[in-house]
């Protein structure tokens, strides 16, 4: 499975990992990974270290995640993107919408 998720012991942080291609085919799994986490102040960490490719639908999915996080006053961080993915995020100026580590 390309999308895996993990909740920290205290339940405050959800880490979503997307491996391989991050595109429209991951939409359902990606949404399932966060939709039931609505605790106020919920942290969402998206681990992109294993993501090889990302298209515009993936960017759209990240925006949906951000909207979800905003609705429960939470936060989204994108972690460890490869050089190529970082370039896409910069080109689309998503680096101003998200914290990228």
């Amino acid at each position: 499975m390309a999308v895996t998720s993990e909740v920290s012991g205290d339940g405050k942080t959800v880490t979503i990992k997307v491996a391989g291609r991050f595109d429209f085919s991951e939409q359902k799994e990606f949404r399932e990974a966060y939709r039931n986490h609505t605790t106020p102040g919920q942290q969402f960490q998206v681990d992109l270290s294993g993501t090889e490719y990302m298209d515009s639908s993936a960017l759209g999915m990240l925006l949906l995640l951000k909207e979800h996080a905003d609705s429960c006053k939470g936060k989204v961080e994108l972690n460890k993107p490869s050089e190529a993915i970082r370039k896409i995020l910069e080109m689309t100026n998503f680096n101003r919408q998200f914290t990228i580590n």
Partner: protein
Amino acid sequence: MEAITEPARVALGNRGKALVVDDDITNRLVLKSMLAKSGFEVIQAEDGEQALLKYTAGRPDIVFMDVMMPVMDGFEAARRIKSLAGNEFIPIIFLTALTDEKSLARCIEVGGDDFLSKPFSYTLLEAKIQSMERIRDLNREVAGLYRQIQHEEEIAERIFNGAVTNDNVMLEQIKTLLRPAAIFSGDMLLTTYSPTRDLHVLLADFTGHGLAAALGALPASEVFRTMAGKGFLVEEILRGINRKLHHLLPTGLFMAAQYVCINSDLEYITVCNCGMPDILLLDADGRHISTRIVSRGLPLGIDPDVDYGEIREYRTINRGDRVVLASDGVIEATNINGEMFGEKRFEQALCEKEHETLKSVGEALDVFCKGATPSDDISLVEVQCVPEILPVWDMQVLLHEKAEAKDKPALDENEMADSLEFNLLVEGRFLRNADPVPLIINHLVDSTDCELPRQTLFVILSELFVNALDHGVLELDSALKHRDEGFEHYFKQRDQRLAALDSGQIRISVRLYEMREGGRIDIQVEDSGAGFDYLAWEAKVAEESVPSGRGIYLLHQLCESVTYYAPGNRVFAVYRWDNNG
């Protein structure tokens, strides 16, 4: 379509047609009576060859096939029937006396869907048939849904072509390489002219493909054409599209865009890149990339409050320069090894041969992607900055109208009475983003039934307003434009001074006289600046060596009179037209 609404067919006596293929008449008759009891209409064949004929003539819903037969055996017949059936799912069940694993495996290899060893029980046969029918019904449902989607995409494409792309200005000088991944692609190219003949080009890339991607195409193109056609500035048009899309599109759907506006003097371009690969500016022969404009903006439809005035840029151009727009599909085109075409290969191909920019890229893509299915839309557009891309100023028509009007006697008292006047004052910080000309024109059009020469009025008003703002309030020196990269410097200084502006004013008065067959407009523009050397300017006009600039030249040509008042910060222009001219 029927498969979508029709429930699984189980009613006895109505299970469709079965083809029984066996060279042994006893076997055929036994099977026939079993199938008839289960509700099948049965047709028969004695060997493989006859089976093909019966299949073609009778179009059965299911086939029962013996293996060893004279003329053509069951394996060959099954292979051919499957190939005749194409995308339609026609289950073939082998009934065979063979029991060795190899032969049974072969039944499936040649395209059979299941097998049963003879002798078989009626219960087992019935179970297999039901299982096949379930698969067949599912197949039909999927095929039906697929047809429905295709049908809808075709309709969407027709609407798209009719409403979006057919209105584009089509020019030989705008070269394109467009390869959509889906029928209905997420990429869109829009072109149109402003009233001052500037060419506006927008290459957009919506999230995803197909219908979802196309949702935003109609509103975006509508706003683009309407606002550009009314003469709004690039930043205003982008703001309009952005707001509309943000309002209409759900989160997660957005539009990346490359925007280029080529000014009608072919002196500079206004560019804005929102989430797309670099916009490239190439020399006339296409061998060298002189400038690249990187993405500075967020794609449109995400954040409603983007100030595009801060991210659009100006670049000086030379005649013949080529502006190249490209969607990410070009760079991300992938070959069978999963490798991407990439920026380096793209730019190398682009500059490889003189004048063959897009053609070379197309060829390089063909070689690189051979055998791979494209996963994203590929759009590549090149506009060459030559006079041919601009519409011809119909000076004859414009001046003809004026000449005709000149011959008319002066307005009489009664006619002078039918008039409308309004004043507009833009002051202080409001001047920073002021774009009052389209608003004035709209207001005039809304206030009168008579037909106004919109384009001419636009040119006159724009020229008067821009002069008042740039040279009056902002005190910019137009000599700046004539140096190397002059327009960059000029507009940079203009942006800086505008951003810091918190005093100054421009007052515009417009008075419209409506007459039986035309009209007259008096325009007065006054700014808070120190004024310019209007006497020298008038002297040049008098000796017919009008200073450079399309605007001033046209202003002088179009208006019945243009009068400056001391100290050169107030101008009064009179324009008359005749609708029967």
